[in-house]
């Protein structure tokens, strides 16, 4: 996932520079003034990097899921365990045996993050 993001970022920057150079050569068929090339390359780079940063921030924000917590209890003693949610978990599911001989079951499943 991270590798794909890096490849995409490099690809975006290179494509932006290429497009800028193509546009410059089309605008100035004889010789492109060096100052303009420098200025436009810098501007293109800044725009490309900013857009990548904004896109990454948005992706990070969208993928931020609240942590799901599972509370496991013993039906005989006061044993209590807190762990992350696994697929297939549900409330009252028996998940094993306690050292006291009682059954361990899922008592609660909830998310920590409060909904806005």
């Amino acid at each position: 996932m991270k590798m794909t993001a890096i490849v995409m970022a490099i690809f975006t920057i290179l494509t932006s520079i290429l497009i800028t150079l193509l546009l410059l050569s089309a605008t100035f068929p004889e010789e492109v003034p060096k100052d303009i090339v420098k200025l436009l390359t810098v501007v293109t780079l800044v725009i490309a990097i900013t857009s990548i940063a904004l896109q990454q921030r948005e992706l990070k924000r969208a993928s931020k899921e609240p942590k799901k917590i599972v509370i496991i209890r013993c039906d005989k003693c006061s044993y209590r365990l807190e762990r992350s949610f696994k697929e297939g978990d549900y409330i009252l599911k028996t998940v094993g045996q306690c050292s006291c001989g009682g059954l361990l079951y899922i008592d609660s499943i909830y998310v920590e993050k409060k909904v806005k």
Partner: protein
Amino acid sequence: MLRRLENMVKKSKEILISQLSSFGSSVHEISRRIDEILEFFVIPPVERDPFGVLRRLEHILDTERERFHQIIRTLAPKVNGIKMRNLENMLEAAIALNSLYRLTRHYALLGRRTKSVFMIMQLEMMLPQITRFAEAYYNAVVSFKDGVPIGDGIGALVVSKLIRRTNAVIKAIKNNTIIAETKIMNRKVLLIKALGPGGEIGKPGTIVEELLSTYKNPRISRIIMIDAAQKLEGEKSGEIVEGVGAAIGDPGPEKMKIEEAATRYGVPIDAIIVKESFEEAISPMTREIAEAADKVIERIYDIISSRTKEGDAVIIAGIGNSIGIAQ
């Protein structure tokens, strides 16, 4: 904003396709049909002639449920019972999200086409509310995918905990609703909740009506209903409030049956509600709401000890979606 909504619809569609494709059908086949399915609609019954409107509504809702069942069976032929209900719920949330997006797009384009500043301004002012609803529906798609309990399931959670704590015996499963029997403080207690851990709401009204008419020895002397209720802004999530009346947020048929039967047999109904926002109701259950379950059980014990006599029979109905909550 429209693009953000579109992205949410796109992502929910992707989740739905990936989930459905893991149960038999090809991704190509599902992708081909999904757009059409997301525009599924229900035409409510005529209300100008109100006679029998709830009976007609119930029939339409039953048909809708049956259709969802068929759609999922066709798109995911190898799916089992629990996952099937979760997929049905996912589909419902995705349809709601898609409708919200289409409606928002309609007004945005109409405003642009007619150059109506007022229409665009109205839409602009509604955007924060639309975003909240859209995010809630999107979260619902994600939680139904994982099978995590949602805020609306607090009633089912309370009954599920009571079943465990009192070693209640499950007597019957009808209309995807379970009836369990136990004894609390020398009172016969009948516990009702939707069949879990799949995403199911059951038909608590039908069951309560049936129990009131068939349970003779002893007769039901009280009904206690537990449900999630919409909190107002500024109120705390997970707050418990008590009142009277049928605490059930269905479109009407189930509520009507409970009210009718309770009135016919003269049985008082106590309502315990747990406050939460609309977003919390269809998103994964938060800690505040989950922790309210134990406090609700204390209230139930209080009601049983103070408002019923030894030897009485009491119905406790936990209303709400039972996703991620077994019995």
